[in-house]
Structures are given as structure tokens and as C-alpha cells.
């Protein structure tokens, strides 16, 4: 029996649009389980990213509630929310979104400095270790403008991992990368999930989706179906791809 680390209940999100309301999320109910690599898929405009940001507290839902480890987080005050983001959540965006005037190493370390759960020495050593794990240690002293998109994105994953988050949110993390970099980033995400990291990722890329252990399909702001997969193995990739494709076809994707 898997434990749910995150629960969404009746989550709605609407935006004002030309005097009317655009309902992007419509009574979403779901649970994210411990140890899973959960992927949310859906057609364009289905509300994937909106759901991700509502779950991660980046954005407040219009109604409904989001609980993380039994704690309601959708209406936390700024200070508490900031603490939660720093200590419990990690984010990887479509763009690397590294702070432009900090080196890759500093981008990673600054997250560790913020929480003050480690000494400065420990933070620096962990940042170095993470950058090595992500194979960007050689670019550690470079600014984001001086590295490739892949290197920047890998540094962004290292940054997200800095404080050993309870949940890593990834929004189309390979959307802006070339084939080779995409592969590298996905391998890293798969590896950290195998090491126990919970991941919730939004993607429209099947090659990324097959890394999941659980797939959710979103349509018109609702989760309409889901699919479970065994842990990813490289040799099984082709078969998984076909399986996911078939599932998506059944969703008229």
C-alpha cells in the first residue's frame, strides 16, 4: 500500500477572461504517492502546468485544497510558503531559470544557504557533489550565459535537489533542450527517482513520459485517466513507449 504525500481535493482554478471566467482546472482530485515518478500529460491547454503550480503552491487555486504530508498548503501565508518551498520542494522549469549573475555553483549553493540546515562548508560540499552527479562540475564557476542549455538545466536539477526536497516538481524540463541534452536530463531524473526522490513532472513528450511510474491524463481541467508502470529500464524503453502511445491514443491525444 503506497502512502500519499500530496492530496488535491476539488481543486479549481479560473482566470478572468474578457469579462468572463476561464475555468482551467475543474474539481481536480488526485493523490501523489511516495516514491513515485508521476507524470501529468494532456493536450495543449488542458491545464497541466496550472495543476503543477497549484499543487506546488507556486499559484493559489481558486477553490479546493492541496495537502502536502497531511498539511493544507494552498492557503499558507507568504513566510510559511517560502519555508516550504525552500525545505520541502524543488523546482525544475522548462527554461533553466538560473539567477543570471550567479555561477552554476552559486545557484546551487544559495538554496542551501537559505535554509541554514547545513553549515556553509556542508552546503558547498553538497553543491559540488550534486554538480558532479549532474556532470556539470567543470562548468561550476561559469555564469548561466556561458553554458549550454543542457548544462544549465542539469544545474537547475542540482539546485532543486540541494535541500533533499520531499517533492521535485518539473515543468517540461526538457522542453527547451536538444535530443542529447534531453536524454541526459531524463536519465538524471530517473536516477534520482530510483534513489527515492518523489517527482511530479508535466510533459507532452512521450520519451519523457515513459520514465514515469505513474501517468495521469488531464483533459479540460480534469484528471480523466491514469496508468501505472513498473520502474524504468533502458532495455524496455521501446516497449514502454508503445504502451504509453497506445494509452494516449485511447485518450485521443
Amino acid at each position: 500500500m503506497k502512502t500519499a504525500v500530496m492530496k488535491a481535493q476539488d481543486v479549481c482554478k479560473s482566470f478572468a477572461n474578457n469579462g468572463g471566467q476561464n475555468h482551467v482546472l475543474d474539481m481536480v482530485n488526485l493523490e501523489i504517492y511516495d516514491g513515485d515518478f508521476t507524470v501529468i500529460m494532456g493536450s495543449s491547454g488542458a491545464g497541466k502546468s496550472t495543476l503543477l503550480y497549484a499543487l506546488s503552491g507556486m499559484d493559489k487555486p481558486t477553490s479546493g485544497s492541496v495537502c502536502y504530508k497531511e498539511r493544507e498548503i494552498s492557503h499558507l501565508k507568504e513566510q510559511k510558503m517560502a519555508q516550504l518551498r525552500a525545505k520541502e520542494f524543488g523546482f525544475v522549469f522548462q527554461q533553466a531559470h538560473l539567477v543570471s549573475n550567479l555561477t552554476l555553483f552559486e545557484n546551487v549553493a544559495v538554496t542551501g544557504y537559505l535554509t541554514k540546515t547545513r553549515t556553509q562548508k556542508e552546503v558547498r560540499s553538497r553543491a559540488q557533489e550534486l554538480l558532479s552527479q549532474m556532470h556539470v562540475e567543470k562548468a561550476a564557476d561559469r555564469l548561466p550565459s556561458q553554458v549550454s542549455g543542457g548544462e544549465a538545466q542539469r544545474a537547475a536539477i542540482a539546485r532543486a535537489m540541494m535541500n533533499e526536497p520531499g517533492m521535485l516538481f518539473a515543468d517540461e524540463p526538457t522542453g527547451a533542450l536538444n535530443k542529447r541534452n534531453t536524454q541526459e536530463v531524463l536519465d538524471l531524473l530517473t536516477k534520482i527517482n530510483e534513489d527515492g526522490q518523489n517527482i511530479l513532472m508535466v510533459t507532452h513528450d512521450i520519451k519523457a513520459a515513459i520514465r514515469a511510474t505513474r501517468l495521469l491524463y488531464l483533459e479540460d481541467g480534469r484528471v480523466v485517466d491514469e496508468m501505472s508502470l513498473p520502474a524504468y529500464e533502458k532495455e524496455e524503453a521501446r516497449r514502454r513507449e508503445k504502451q504509453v502511445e497506445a494509452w494516449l491514443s485511447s485518450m485521443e491525444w
Partner: protein
Amino acid sequence: MKYFTLLKANIKSQKGSFIGISLLMFIITVSLLAVLTIWKNANDYEEEQLLRTGYGDITSWIGGKDNIEDLRGQIEALSDVWKVEVQDAIIISRYYVNGQENVTGTLQIFAFGQGRYDYHIFNENLTGIEESAEEPSEGEVYVSPAFCSLYDAQAGDEIAIQIEGEKDRAVYTIKGFFEDPAAGTALMGIKSILMNTVDIEKLSKRIEEAESQAQAAESCLLHIFQSEQSSLSMLEFQNLLGEKTQVNDYASFTYSAQAIEGFMLILQNIFAGFLLVFVVVLLVITMVVIGHSISSCIEQDYVNMGILKAVGFTRADLKRIQILQYVLAVLVGMVPGSFLSGIVVRLINRLTVTTTGLIIPADGNLAMCMAALGVILCLLTVFISLKTAGIGKITPIRAIRGGADDVYFSSRLTTRIYQRGLVLHLALRQLLSGKKQYVSACMVAALLVFFISLSVRIGVWMGPDGKGLMNVFSPVRFDIGFGCEDKELEREVDALIAQNAQVAAWYEFKMERAVIGNYECPVNIASAPEYFNVIKGRTCKYENEVLVTELVADVIGAQTGDTVWVSYKGKELEFIISGIYQCANDMGDNFAISKEGWERFESEPVSFYHYYILEDSSEVGEIAELLNEKYKDRIDLDENEWSGLEAILSAMTAIEAFMYVITAVFILVAVYLTGSKVLYKEKRDLGIYKSLGFTAGKLRMSFALRFCMMAVIGSALGNVLSGLFTDSLVTAMLTMCGVSRFESSLSPLQMLFSGVIVSGLFLVFAYLAAGKIKKVEPSILIVE
């Protein structure tokens, strides 16, 4: 129409900059026009009133009326003289207002309505002139409104005059106030009052019958008018009178109309100069802010401008729109500022009437104001035009590719990020990465600190009680002094002072009038010439030496080492100028000599004041009280005080308050304009920081610290600039009132003061301006 549409859109999207620049220009316009109008109106009005009330090109104050017709004849015989008019007066050296004795000056009494000497009488609340002035009844007098600020006098109060040997004082009631263009200011020791002719006659009779005329005497003013055909300068004319007539032998003092104007308007002129420098500083700050705003707006609108170029707009079109936009902001500030300046002038004139003694017109001089604003507008237009040159570099293709986003490159100047003080380290990194964006903040801080530091230096130089300023006006340094005719009493007072205070030094001093190189002016005589404030050469150690001020040196065309003739009461002797000294008395129009040197003119023993320098100058009050208690009316006490000092100190306080308020407003606008552009550029980074768990409070503090750090650098620079330029700048301003050397110094704490104020304001305002960070959500990073 194409311009109008874009202009409207630009103003709408950059309304913050537009309002900010308009506000700065509004403040500059109000300050500039108010200062210029007061300065011009005061000078014109004073000149007009002197003429209207009968003052000549030269006026001599003559003690007594004997031989006056002879003297008048001598003067009128000169071809350069048009006419001479005699105005009768009574001079009083001891008088009391509501029982309070005047400390520094004399009183001159004129008869009300003596033909052409037709004075303006103020209305009840001192806001205007009565159309038909009523002659004071017997026992009533009109006085200058300066009596209000000096003695807190009101209509109905009493003025008492002491006549030597008389037990009872002559007492008069103040009927109202009149405008005295020659001595009405609170800054001059001499004061005039207007009296009924019957009272004048009665008073003259009492003086005639008095045992001595030491405290009250008949006198007259000779108003000498230069003929239109005369080609002599005023100085040459004055020298000619001294040379060809006996006027210097009879006159207690002689002044040209310009000199009287100078005395009357000394405060307005100094403060006008000071405020004009401040306005120039503010204008430079506004240019810095406009410059930064233009650069940021070009960066911000890079894509739009590229697109406009792609659809056919030329570089000149885009530049024109930018220039129009900023010039419009400047004009929007200037127009209401011009109107408000009229109200401000009226208010200032009303508030200062008891100090200036004049009801200075508030009407703006349209030509002067238009010229001043025109010059500023042209200057700003050229500046804006130069700053918009960057528009030429915009190409449609570059704009379409994403504009001119900042790309950071590794800089040698970088700092490490530490866990402790993370916010500060991040602020420093941001600062070093985007130096250019904060240069304007640094420059604004430097200019403001420069000016505040300049005023602090002036404040320190003046001292909290104005002692510094008094020292400049005093020929010699002293804490307390007294004078009396009775030698026995003199010895007694000396002994009493010695018993009750630690005396560091004492010497004898007196002031006379003499002629140096044909130029008649006051001479300061001291038995200890080492106490003269020598600024060049050395003091007049030997009996054949004199010291002159820079002004007198210029007038007589002599320098240190030159030989000059000095004459006093018909005796002419040769002296060597041993040095240049500073004494702003009579606006620097004086010279100095040692007691030994003076004895070459007056070998008979004469009465000198005894001046004391105390070990502890805080004892002055106590000693003065003691002397007043014991020898009241028997000695003349000199506490090194000046009736106008309080007016100067309050004006300085008011100006400082004004300066701090304006400084705060300028910092607020500069920070808001610079800060909003920086925030706009860093929106993405702020979103990232928030997604990492930084709170808005931390980010705001980091943002505010950047401005504060730049302000600290700017403050240091401002202090250096102030150290380098204050003395020469202030000396240039004070030269007109006879101060030829201004030397200031600040303690490290005083230096810190202006820096702390400015940096603190930057920190607070930047923190407030960064309030927008609260609204930045990490969701801006979402790409749907």
C-alpha cells in the same frame, strides 16, 4: 497624429517616470523662480525706496549741525555734484524697548513727513502699505518691523530714550511700523524711528540742555547726488568728496546707496546665492535621473522600437517622440511650478517682513523667469537629445531576436556568496553585476551629500550660537568687553572680571573712522594686534604698519608691502601694509592698526574698550550678569553679540529644513524611478528567488541594500567633493559681504552625519519602492 498616438501610449506606459520627472521639475521651478524673484524684487525695490525716501548717491551721517551749510557749500561747489540735501536727525545711543536695553546699535530719529522724506507706513498686520499715513500724535512713534523680531515689540509698546544726566527717560508709544529702506533690517545695529515734529523739538531742547551729548545728540544726514554729467565711478566720486571737501572730518560714517543696499539685503543675497547653488545641484540630479530613465526606457522598449522601425518609423521619428515625451514631462512640472512660485514668494516675503523691514513686492518678473526657464528647457532638450542617441543602434532584426537583454559576463570584480549575511552578499553581487544601473543612484547621493555637507560645514563654521559668524564680523577675537570714560571705574571693573573669571588674555580696543589712500572707512585699533584675523602677510606689529581687508586693498589698489597714507582729523601719516586681514564689518570695508600706531594720531590718552578672552567662554553669561547688576548704565558692555544674529540663525535653520525635505523628495523620486526600472528588469530573477524559498521581505531588503551601498559610496564621494570645493564656493558667495576667507572642517562624526541621512533615506525609500516584489509570483516563470 502618428506622433500623438505613440506619445500618448509612451506616457501611459511610463507614467511613473513622467510623474517623477514632472515632480522634480516642479520643485526646481518653484525654488528657482522664488529665489530669483525675491532676489531681483528685493534689490530693485530697495534701490527704488532709497531714492524715493531721499537718500543720495552718497549719504554722510554728520554728528552735530555746526558748519553744515559751509560743508554743503563745499560739496555743491564740485562739478561732479548735482545737489546736496540735508535731513535733520537726532542720534540716540541708549534706548529701551519695553524696558529691554538695546545691545548693539544706535537710534536715529527723524521727523515724520518732512517733505520728500515720505515713508511708507505698514498696515496693522504688516501685509501692505497704508494709503494715507497718519502722523503720529505727540508721544507716539513709528518704528521698523525689525523691532518685532528684535524685541518682540507691538503697536502700543514703549520706547524709552535716555538723555545724559536726566533722571527720567523720554518715553514714547509705538503707534505702528514704517518701512525704512536704509536701516530697517533686523541685521543692522542702527535703527530709525519717526516722530511728531513737536516731540522732535521738545527732545532737541532737552538734548541742548543736557550736561553732555554722549547719549543723545543732534545730527543730520547729507544726501549727496552725483551729477548726470559726472563720469566718475561711485568709488571715485566718494574719494573725490574725501579729497576736495571736509566731509570725512565731519561725518561719523559715509555710505554709497549701493553699500546701504548691500547692508540691507545682505541676508537675502547670501541665501539667494546659497539656494541657487542648491537649485543647480538639483538640476544636475534631475539630469542624472532623466538620463537613467531614458536609457532604461530604450532597453525596455527595445522590441517595440525595433518593430516601429520595421514598419517604417525612422530613427529621427523615434527620437522626436522620446524628446517630446521628456520635454512634456519637464513642462508639466514647470507650468504649475511657475504659478506656485508666486504664492511661495508672497509667503516668504510675508514671513520675513520683520527681518528685512521691507514689504518686497511679490510680482514675478516675467522676462527674467521666462529667460531662466528657457535656458533650463534648452539645456534639458539638448541633454535628452544626446541621451536618446542610443535609438539609432536599434535594428528591427535585433529587436525581433529578443532585444537587448542583459547578458552577464564574468567580471574580475566579484565577491563570494556566504551563508552568513546571505541577503547582503546577494545585494553586493547584484550591485557588481549591474553597476551601470546604480551609477545614477550613486551620483544623486554624491551630489546631495555634497550639498548637505556644505551646509553642515557652514553650520559648524557658524556654531550653534552663531559665534563663528560673529568672529568673522568682529575685527578681533574676544568673549566680553566693556567701555567707560571713568578711569577709576575702569580699574574696578577690570578687577572684578579678573576675580570672577579665568582670563586668558585682555587688550584695549576701539573703532574710529579714518581715511586710507583717500578712502574713508572704519579703522579697528587694538593694543594686541596679534588678535586680528590675518590671512596673508603678518599683523601690524610696528607703529608704522597697518592691516587692510582684501576689499580695501582692492579699492585703494595696494598690496602687502606697499606704502599708504592714512589721515585722521587732518593729520596725514605714512604706513606700510603688513598684511591682509579678515573682518566682515561694514562688508569688509575697514582696516586695522595697532594702538601704538594709532598714538601717532592721538597722543593724548583716549578711552578704549577693554576686551577679554576667557579660558572658559561659557562664563560670559555669568560675568555679563554680574557687570550688568553692578554697573548698569555706568559702563557699555559688549558681549560680542549682534542683533541680527538670531535672524540669520533662524533663516539658516529654515533653509536647512527646506533642504532636508527637498533632499528626501529627490531621493524618493530618484529611487522610485531607478528602482522601478531595475525591478522590471529583474522580475524573472525575483521569481526564481521566490521559487527557491526567498521571502519578499528578504528580497526587498537585498534590493534596498544595493541602493544603500551605492548611497554610501556616493556619500563618501560627496564628502570628498565637499572637502575640496566647499571653502572656495562659500568664499565666493560670502565675498559680497566682506568675508574673503572661509575655512571649514568637519569631524569624522559630522562627515558621517550627511552620509548616514542620505544612505538611510536611500535604504528606506528603496525598501518601500521594492514593495512591488510582494506582487511578483514564481508563476511568472511558467511557460504555458
